[in-house]
């Protein structure tokens, strides 16, 4: 939400609604079945709808993991277009680089409150063998991330908003419950659902600017603002990540991709880099822990996220909730049997899980981590195949 006032990426104008600065708070919600059980998006729609007061109709969205088991080895590219011309240009880029195993419009349900929608398509792809050979020093993930970056920077009216395997992001301008109905989110089954209701404060509401933001398997929903956006953005540019979406949230997705996929840091260490302990606290730590914290703060200064925020991050094997260090945005978590719930407000959890085993308030800078149990991913695929 926090970005330069120059109007953002040239041409990326998909129904941007320009508004003055409003005071508000977004809503976030995440549900994960750690045993890999698949469940309908209807549940997370009810949870996010409970927090309607936190949104203002200028953005809603979902990320779902486990929804494309028939294409589990293909990148699922969800793309929005302003025009048929943009679609042609983008499809050329995809065809040059990828084998397209299946392509279709994203199924939607006509809804009067959802207006001025872009063209919405999805492509199940793999990188062409000759491209893998040509870029022998890059992984398939790296090449795919570059393709996404190329489309999002070079095609003025084309925008890849989801690019992971066996997962998908559905988002747009509207209240989240309406966006959910529009994308028929209740017809998908996933083991992780994250959702967002947007109340944009610093930038415009447009289809691409709705949350979640995604790159490869990562998806992020966010309440708050990243005051360190400028530093983070320049830091990420060193590693080939270019921020094109007129909102601060995308830096979180790229930092997760950088620290976890490229630098292979353990999850807890990556979260420490983004929301590190204060120096005074580091001084009180046991020697080994102190050394680690000092090193992380020193090496990953550019990845430190400052400002008030609460985020929920999804990836193929887990879900993470975390807050800024002094907790300037709300976050509540609960567990019930094999499920982890994270939300901006407790009622958004009790709405769908009336008596959780345990409910607690997040602590600033301390991640809440859900992980798929061993083998649960396979069983999630088997549930559908069977």
């Amino acid at each position, binding site marked *: 939400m926090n970005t330069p006032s120059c109007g953002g990426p040239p041409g990326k104008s998909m129904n941007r609604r320009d508004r003055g600065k409003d005071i508000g708070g977004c809503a976030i919600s995440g549900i994960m079945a750690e045993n890999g059980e698949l469940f309908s998006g209807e549940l997370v729609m009810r949870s996010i709808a409970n927090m309607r*007061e936190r949104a203002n109709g200028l953005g809603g969205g979902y990320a779902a993991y486990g929804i494309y088991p028939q294409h589990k080895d293909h990148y699922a590219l969800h793309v929005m277009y302003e025009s048929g011309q943009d679609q042609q240009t983008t499809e050329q880029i995809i065809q040059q680089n990828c084998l397209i195993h299946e392509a279709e419009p994203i199924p939607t349900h006509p809804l009067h409150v959802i207006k001025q929608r872009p063209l919405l398509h999805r492509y199940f792809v793999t990188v062409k063998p000759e491209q893998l050979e040509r870029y022998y020093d890059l992984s398939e993930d790296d090449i795919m991330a570059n393709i996404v970056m190329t489309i999002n920077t070079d095609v003025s009216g084309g925008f890849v908003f989801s690019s992971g395997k066996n997962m998908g992001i559905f988002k747009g301008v509207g209240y989240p419950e309406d966006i959910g109905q529009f994308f028929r989110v209740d017809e998908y089954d996933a083991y992780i659902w994250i959702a967002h209701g947007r109340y944009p404060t610093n930038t415009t509401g447009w289809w691409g600017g709705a949350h979640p933001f995604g790159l490869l398997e990562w998806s992020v929903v966010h309440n708050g603002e990243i005051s360190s956006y400028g530093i983070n953005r320049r830091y990420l540019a060193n590693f080939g990540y270019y921020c094109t979406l007129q909102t601060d949230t995308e830096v979180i997705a790229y930092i997760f991709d950088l620290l976890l996929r490229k630098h292979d840091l353990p999850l807890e260490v990556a979260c420490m880099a983004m929301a590190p302990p204060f120096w005074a606290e580091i001084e*009180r730590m046991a020697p080994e822990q102190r050394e680690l914290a000092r090193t992380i703060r020193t090496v990953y200064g550019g990845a430190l996220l400052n400002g008030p925020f609460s985020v929920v991050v999804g990836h193929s094997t887990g879900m993470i909730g975390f807050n800024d260090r*002094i*907790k300037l945005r*709300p976050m509540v978590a609960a567990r019930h049997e094999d499920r982890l719930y994270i939300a901006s*407000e*407790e*009622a958004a959890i*009790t709405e769908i899980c009336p008596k959780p085993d345990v409910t607690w308030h997040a602590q*600033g800078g301390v991640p809440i981590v859900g992980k798929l149990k061993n083998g649960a991913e396979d069983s999630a695929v088997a549930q559908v195949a069977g």
Partner: protein
Amino acid sequence: MTINATGVYYRQLNEQIRAAFNNGADEVVVENVCGHRYLGTSLRSGRIVINGVPGNDLGAFMDGAEIIVRGNAQDGVGNTMNAGKIVIHGHAGDILGYAQRGGKIFVQDSVGYRAGIHMKAYHDHFPVVVVGGTAQDYLGEYMAGGILAVLNLNSGDQLAAGDYIGTGMHGGVIYLRGTVEAYQLGQEVGLECLEESDWQSLGSILGEYCTEFDRDPAQFCQGDFVKLTPRSTRPYGRLYVY
């Protein structure tokens, strides 16, 4: 009188509650509350019993009524409350008692960040907050008046409150049951033992708290508490004076 909140938008729910009191009800029981905001706003009298999880800013600007929550509460309980009483049979979220100017808030379990932020007292308006469990960081931030007590009844050897206690505090008093480490304190507060007069005022508040939650007041003794007060009534008076 009983109202079912299922499927009712918070504005209509508040209107129904207000209408019930205007029609002479002394007590309104609200069932199936789930995130409904601003319940009891500015009410002067009557008693609301809430079953479920009320939404943010419960009892905001409340001016004499009583709210009993049989469940957990969210953020901003008693925001700018002027008089009355809120009793929560569960835990509560962040900024409990935000700018509270009077009345009492009793919480059975723990509370989130910034409980008692900018509570203030003036003449006979004197706000009181008692937390049965623990409080997270920034307890009593910018506190300007009243009494804020954390009893640490359920957490074993955990400290009663998190870090940065009383940051920016310039009035009122915080009582914590158990120990507190020097690093937990904001720069603006000093640590003392309770005097007899402290124990008298705290003792009567604890008596009322124990009645609400059916606890034995004899479990508390003066020596278990520490007292935090501001070092200055105007800590930032010279902040921008060069």
